[in-house]
């Protein structure tokens, strides 16, 4: 095996040496230089393309993060009120208070009461959302009008 190993190495070595003897080094050098010139010319647009691509990728990533944050936030899509209008509601995470503006009743307060405290994990009883006006308003009940402060109870 060792003898064959040496013979194989010798054959490969001889083959490489013979093939290399035919290489025109000056021509090869000129060819490489020409290819480098060509690469240099296309290098600038290539780098510019890379920058644009990176910027686009950054913007796309930021947009994805923003969407993920928005989806992950418990943002109410809008509260449906009696006359079919939607009221925009500020972002409220869990228990807390916020303000809401409903055209018919001017500025209102929103209070969210978390009723799940103390219950088992999978047993949700729901949450009270109380929308009330800071000052009593005159509500139209059809036949008679009366002053009230609680406008909606969900």
């Amino acid at each position, binding site marked *: 095996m060792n003898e064959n190993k040496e013979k194989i190495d010798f054959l490969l070595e001889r083959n*490489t040496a013979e093939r290399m003897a035919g290489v025109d080094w000056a021509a090869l050098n000129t060819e490489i230089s020409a290819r*480098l010139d060509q690469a240099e010319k296309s290098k600038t647009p290539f780098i510019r393309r890379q920058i644009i691509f990176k910027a686009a990728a950054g913007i796309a990533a930021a947009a994805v993060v923003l969407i993920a944050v928005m989806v992950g936030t418990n943002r109410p899509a809008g509260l449906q009120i009696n006359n079919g209008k939607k009221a925009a509601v500020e972002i409220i995470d869990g228990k807390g208070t916020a303000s809401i503006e409903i055209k018919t009743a001017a500025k209102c307060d929103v209070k969210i009461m978390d009723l799940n405290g103390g219950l088992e994990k999978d047993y949700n009883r729901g949450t009270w959302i109380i929308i009330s006006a800071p000052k009593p308003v005159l509500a139209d009940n059809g036949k008679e009008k009366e002053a009230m402060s609680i406008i909606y109870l969900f």
Partner: protein
Amino acid sequence: MNEDCEATTNDVEQLVKSSQTGDRGAFDQLVRLYQHRAIRLAVGILGDAEEAAEAVQAGFVKAYLGINKLKEPTRFETWLLRIISNAAISQRRTAERRKSRIRTVDCNECGKAVLPADKGIAEELKGAIQKAMSKLSKKEARAISLFGLEDLSQEQAAEIMGCSTEAVRWYVFKARKKLKVLLKEYLE
């Protein structure tokens, strides 16, 4: 490295650093320093000088475009030889595809007959070696070619191939074993 153009490690490091700042002249010098070694490796893998020249050109262009990615200028040689060997492997694939498109006669049946009589045994042997090299796996061809480079340690060969020194030795062993069968008639 080219024997006509010896350079110290410090020179190479300086040339690499200059190339990284956009000095094209410095890179041209690196080309002159390493083209001999690069061709030698590519010829070893491809078994053909023309294909090797093509691979070397592509390899140097890739190295030029990516030189800023090289963090340690002292490792330029290993980094460059890895690029060259990858380019040679890629060139081998291109050559294989080219050959498969051209309808060829099965050389197992008439291999020697297609060679012109005046080319003699040396040409015949070259053809046989080139054919035998193409039968090796990419890793085997790369490993045995890297072993053919003088002054290249097994550790460097392993780094170029991205594997352990034991794995390199194993690929060399397998390559020799295959070549022993493929070149049997020339070994007797």
